[in-house]
Structures are given as C-alpha cells and as structure tokens.
C-alpha cells in the first residue's frame, strides 16, 4: 500500500445533516463516501469490497437499519476485516449492547464532539491496519521458514535420489501425493486429528523417506533385473537404517519434523495387514504419516519408470493398488485415494511446477492466527479489486442480464446491458430468491431444481423459464448458470451461482 493512499470511510445515515457533519470532520484526512440508508451502504460495500477502511453506521434508518447491516456483514464474513463504528442518538443500553454483540468496534452517541470522533476514527483504523500488517508479516515469515525448511530437505533427499538413479521429481511428487491424501483424510476423518501444519510437516518429512538407501550398495540399488532374496533383504534394511540415522542426530531429535521423518523412514514399507517390513506392524499401529507416505510411494513408483520396470499408466496404477497387488492399506486412506485418484494425475503435474510454492503459507499462517476462514489481507484485496474491474468491464459488453448470487450472504448482484430491461436493481441483499419467487414461483422452482442437480464435476446447467420484464410482459428467457463449489470443507458445498439470463423468441 502506498504511503500517500488515503483511506476511505463510508458514512451510512439517513439524515443529510448527520452525513455533512461527519464528512466535515473527516474529509481533511480521509476520502468520505455517503449512503443514505442501509441498502445503499451494502451496495457500496459490495461495489468496493475491501477498499473501505471504516463504516460509520447509524442505527435507525429506512430500508435495512443499522442492525440489519451488521447482520449482513456478519453473514458475509466481512465483520472481521471492516471496522464499524455506530454513531447514534440512541442511548438505551439495550441498543448499545446489541451493537457490540454484533461486533461493532465503537459506539458514539449524539451529541458528539468532532475532535473525539476524529480521534476514535483514527484509532480504530490504525488498529485494524496494524492487525492487517501483522497478518501479512506472519504470512511472510511462515512462508520464508517453510521455504528454507523445504529447500534443505529437498537438497538432502535429492542427493539420495540421485544415487538411486532417479530425478529429484520423485521427492517432489511424494510430497504432493502425501499432502493430497492427508488433506482428504483431514476433511473426511477428523478423528485422525490432522491439521494444516501437521500435514505440512508430514509432507515435508515425506521427502526423507528413503534416506536409508544411502548405505545400500550401488550394485543392489541400481540393479536392472530382479533382486535375489539375499539382495532384497539388504535392500529392506534401508527403512530401519533411515530411522537410525536420524536417531543419531545431535540436535533436533525432538523436532516434530524429525519425529515424523523417523516414523516415515522406518515404517513406510509396513502394510495394514501386518505383512510389511521391517517390524510387521499392523493396522493403526502404523503411524498415519507413514501410512500416507507408503501409499504415495507405491503410487509414484508404479507410474514412474525405474531401472527394473517401465512406467504404468495412471489407470493401471490405480487398479493395481485397488486390487491389493501392492499390499493392503488402511481402508480410510483407500477411500481418500479413490476420491482423489482422478485429480491426482493432473494436480501432480500442476503442483510439480517448481515456480509454485509447495506449501500454502497463507493457509498455515491463518492457522497460526487461529482463523480457519479466509480473510482479506492487503494482497487479497488487490486481487479482488482486479477481478472486480475485469468482471465489470466484461459485463458491460455482455448482452442479457448477468447475475452473481452469493449463498452465504443470500445476496444477488445484477449487471449487464439488459439489467434495466428486466427492471432488476443492482443488488438484492437478503432473501434474494424473493424477487423471482413473487412473480414467477414456477421459474424459481425450475432453477432451484436444476441447481440442485449440479455437482462439482458438472457445475453448469441451464433452463428455459418465463419471466416478467420491466414492461410487464412475460417472455421466454434462457438462463445459463455456473454453480460455484467450495471443496475446502468436509463435503463440497455450493458457494454461489453466476450466470446470464437472455430473452428468447421461444424456448426449446
């Protein structure tokens, strides 16, 4: 953010006098925009999401009062990023309490002293700016730390792989596959107690799974044909040896990374039914870190070319693992593997790009901040701004009525060349479905049913419905929409629907 960038304050008050007085107080130091009721405030906030530093809110207003605005902010999860100060003539304690319960930062009652208002505004904005800066600093630090860790581990593992006659890509892919499996496991089976930071550590440690091979003789390690039973016994020692090597560390033995690395080295050849090596552990005796890496290692070995074998296709590899040809794995893990299998191929390809960070530092730092929901830190805001500008620009060329429905806040925004022809407002906050439901209940039912039939794999749908336009005439309209899915939770869920409505002569 530039030093000279002035912050913007939104004043929402129905009385012109109140807006003028506040604007007089603040306009020397801030850019001030005004809304004359709650609905206009929400519209401005959506238009300039993330670009407003403070909301000064009146409570008693027509068309959405202050409390409704606060509830809306809460539903849209903006309340963490946008400080709100109430300025009201209302002095009843119940009102003030309710304001604070709804998350406002400050409550100023009338009559107010201009100097006090200015100071309190400054303090609140500074506090939030500090908090955002802190968030960025932590993100930066987590990213730096992870980068350094990952680099060291990668150097070490690549040396081992190099001796093994393999490229360092195996290390990278093991990391990614393990991470994918564990993320899926975290979503589906909370009982494993996985967190984003644990997963980052395990997938980092996964790169070290074969370090024990450094003591396996070259002739065995790189033998093109099948190993003799004696040779295989020697090969098998790499698992326990990796663990012992790490046990010999003078420093860092207590580090979580090392603990996971030891589990992974020693037990990544164990199998669920107890028929693996070196210890013949069974079922949940095998730590989950080692189980995930074992499966990742098997899959990657199958789809890679090795001195002793050609690469199998992704499909063959999946069915070989399914058929138990590579030993038994935890059924929970297999369920995740099956769910992720289709995307495995593609994601590995994308994420192997060294230009991309292997770790999602943002996700980790969010966890550090004990926030599981994505926030709007400085960078995100810039991205959002850019996307919004692009969308608005593109929408101005587009025929028809464009809509963008956000299910969490139950808000729909309309745009496009034909918006006025349809007689729709720019935004409807609260019960977005009501508009269409009132005049065309059957159209709404058709759309709801179509939307319900979509899935993350098949998110696009269309329907032909009859809608009443601004001229009062009912016309056939083709609705094409894309359902936006979130797959970050346990179950994929619908985030919203975007699409276009176009008037047709008739519909098929």
């Amino acid at each position: 953010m530039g030093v000279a960038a002035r912050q913007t304050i939104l004043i929402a008050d129905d009385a012109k006098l109140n807006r003028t007085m506040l604007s007089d107080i603040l306009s020397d130091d801030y850019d001030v925009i005004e809304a004359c009721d709650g609905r206009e405030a929400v519209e401005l906030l959506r238009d300039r999401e993330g670009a407003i530093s403070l909301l000064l809110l009146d409570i008693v207003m027509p068309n959405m009062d202050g409390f409704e605005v606060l509830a809306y902010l809460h539903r849209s999860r903006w309340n963490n990023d946008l400080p709100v100060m109430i300025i009201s003539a209302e002095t009843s304690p119940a009102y003030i309490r309710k304001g604070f319960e709804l998350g406002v930062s400050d409550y100023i009652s009338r009559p107010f002293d201009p100097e006090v208002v200015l100071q309190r505004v400054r303090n609140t904005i500074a506090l939030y700016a500090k908090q955002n800066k802190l968030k960025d600093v932590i993100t930066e630090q987590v990213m730096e730390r992870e980068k350094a860790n990952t680099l060291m581990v990668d150097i070490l593992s690549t040396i081992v792989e190099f001796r093994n006659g393999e490229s360092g890509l195996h290390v990278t892919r093991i990391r990614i596959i393990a991470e994918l499996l564990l993320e899926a496991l975290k979503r589906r089976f909370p009982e494993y107690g996985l967190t984003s930071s644990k997963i980052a550590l395990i997938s980092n440690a996964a790169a070290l799974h074969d370090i024990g091979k450094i003591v396996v003789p070259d002739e065995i390690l790189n033998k093109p044909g099948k190993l003799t039973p004696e040779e295989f016994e020697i090969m098998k020692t790499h698992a326990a040896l990796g663990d012992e090597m790490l046990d010999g560390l003078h420093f860092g033995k207590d580090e979580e990374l090392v603990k996971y690395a030891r589990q992974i080295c020693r037990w990544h050849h164990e199998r669920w039914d107890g028929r693996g090596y070196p210890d013949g552990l069974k079922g949940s005796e095998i730590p989950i870190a080692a189980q995930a890496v074992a499966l990742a290692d098997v899959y990657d070995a199958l789809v890679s070319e090795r001195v002793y074998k050609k690469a199998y296709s992704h499909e063959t590899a999946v069915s070989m693992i399914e058929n138990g040809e590579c030993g038994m794995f935890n059924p929970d893990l297999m369920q995740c593997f099956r769910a992720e299998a289709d995307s495995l191929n593609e994601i590995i390809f994308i994420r192997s790009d060294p230009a991309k960070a292997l770790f999602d530092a943002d996700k980790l730092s969010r966890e550090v901040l004990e926030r599981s929901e994505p926030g709007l830190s400085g960078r995100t805001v810039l991205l959002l701004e850019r996307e919004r500008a692009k969308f608005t620009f593109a929408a101005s060329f587009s025929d028809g009525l464009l809509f963008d429905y956000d299910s969490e806040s139950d808000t729909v925004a309309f745009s496009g060349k034909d918006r006025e022809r349809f007689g729709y407002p720019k935004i409807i906050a609260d019960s977005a479905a009501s508009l269409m439901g009132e005049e065309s209940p059957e159209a709404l039912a058709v759309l709801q049913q179509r939307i319900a039939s979509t899935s993350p794999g098949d998110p696009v749908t269309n329907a032909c419905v009859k809608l009443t336009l601004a001229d009062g005439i009912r016309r056939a309209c083709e609705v094409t929409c894309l359902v936006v899915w979130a797959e970050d939770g346990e179950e994929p869920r619908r985030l919203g629907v975007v699409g276009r409505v176009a008037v047709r002569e008739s519909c098929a």
Partner: protein
Amino acid sequence: MGMRELYDAMGVEYDDVLALLRREDRIELYFTQMMDDPSFGELERTMEERDYPAAFRAAHTIKGMCVNLMIEPLAKASIALVECLRTDPVDEAEATSLYAQVRNEHNLLLSRWDDLL
C-alpha cells in the same frame, strides 16, 4: 437576526454551540439541512396514519439532529416523543399530545428561521 440571536431566542448559549461544533462557518448550512430534512414531513404523515414504528424512526432522526445542533427545546420535545413511541402498545393520547409539542416547537423554530433569512 443571526445564528447567535436565534440560539439566544431558544435560551441556548451560542458560545456552547460554537465550542461543540467548532465550525462557525458551517452552522448555518447544518441548520438549513436540518430544516430541510424530510423527517418532519414524515413524522406528520406517519402520526396521521398512526404508523407508529415509522413515526418512531422519524422522531428519532429529528432527535439526533437537534441534539447535535443543541436545539434544546425541540430536542427535549422529540426525546419525549421518541420514548413514548418506543413502548408497545403506544399510548396514543400521550403520543398525540407529545407530537403537538414537537410540532409547536418546530413551528416556532421555523418562524424564527424565516426571520433570520
């Protein structure tokens, strides 16, 4: 008559007003905006229609403006009306009489304001 005389006529110390608002150059503008505010018309309409929730909102806005500009007689009358309209059910006889006081104070202010212009 200037702003100082207008406040004197209401029995309000103008220096206190200046101390609060600090912008002598803006006080007349503030006053104009308050007098032009649609809340007064809104209050009249909603009281006639006995739409008390809407009357509460209008009276509340009037109260806020008057308190901020230290227009004490009208502030006092509108505060009383706000508190009466807040209760459910509204005591209609009391609301009507309190509204009459608000209207009287408003009319008085209007005539003084006209003298000033």
